[in-house]
């Protein structure tokens, strides 16, 4: 039981780290702000979910799980809103936004 928990928890944390790495590469790889934002929003939601889930399984205690759930709720509430606001600023201030992202 202990071993299974450790293995599952570590695997989840590592998966979360992989997601973080992918979004990090994406932030450098993409050229335009909105694409970069898309990549960085990935680690806000999926990455933190995986890491928190892994930590909850590793610690296996009610209070730790509750605290992690609070942190996750905070991150999920604020992260997308921050992304949304930053995107809005870009759309409002960039004159050539229509050329940068062609909407069909």
């Amino acid at each position, binding site marked *: 039981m202990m071993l299974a928990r450790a293995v599952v928890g570590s695997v989840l944390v590592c998966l979360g780290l992989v997601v973080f790495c992918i979004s990090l*590469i994406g932030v*450098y*790889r*993409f*050229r335009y702000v909105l694409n970069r934002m898309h990549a960085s929003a990935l680690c806000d939601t999926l990455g933190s979910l995986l890491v928190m889930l892994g930590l909850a399984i590793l610690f296996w205690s009610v209070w730790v799980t509750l605290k992690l759930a609070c942190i996750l709720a*905070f991150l999920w*509430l*604020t992260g997308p*809103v921050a992304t*949304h*606001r930053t995107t*809005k600023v870009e759309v*409002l201030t960039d004159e050539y936004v229509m050329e940068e992202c062609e909407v069909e």
Partner: protein
Amino acid sequence: MTKNIKEQWRQFAAWVNGVENDEPVVTPEEKRAARPHLPGFVHRVLSEKNELRLYHAFSAVMCLVFTGTLLLTVLFLPTFGGAGNPTENEVMERYVEKGIEEVGATNLISNIILVYRGFDTFGESCVLFLAATCVMILLRKDEKNTTAYDLAERAEDAEIESEENTTVLRSVVRMLMPVILLFGVYVLLNGHLSPGGGFSGGAILGAGLILFENAFGLEKVRRFMSEHVYHIIKVAALYFYGFTMIYVFFTGANDLHSIIGTGIPGMIFSAGVIMPINVAVGLEVACTMYAFYAFFSKGEL
């Protein structure tokens, strides 16, 4: 084989850096050729190649000198944990052993920064106060230094803000605001029992205020935090802090009986002056943070 790997690595690095395939990859030689040269006489004396060599030699010498100096200093440092070290004195022991008994806070850090080293923290609060005052002097916009251009700019900003649809931000802030402020107050009031205290709690409160201003605008914040309230809070907090510290220093230095007891360590009303001072420092920091933001973005509170 190795060259192949190198080439692949460079391609991968270029890909991560966002270089498209049709773009030419800038080699280090080209970069070097494109950089500005030393002006004037150096040019006349040195050829281009020698100039580059001079650069390299200089940078290498600088690196070596700095590294050597630092390493030499390390050689003369006292051994870690040695008995004769200047840090190995009775002060640290006293903080740890008698801190709870003498001051009463279970958070030893707050014992040290607010009581044992009260002078220092009081100076820091004064620095914060001074900084906010200077920012106010420099950035404040009132009828005397507002030009027509400023007014037009402000009107444009207000128009953009009124057109903006901030439903997402507002609903989330409505949900989070009480939690953030409550957490800030908790950190303030528990500064003597758990990690936290005036500076961190004040930072949380200030960040919450800035968030609120972002979502609902300056007018809504002015309902509870106008410039008048700001002045009252800031000056009152600093005065309270100053007079409390004077009293503590006076009674402590003259061995007089102080009316401020230590209480039972671990209770919320314990540790004498630490909790009220934490609250004062927190208010000071929160006001400073919010004022910085408001003055930099709008020029007024």
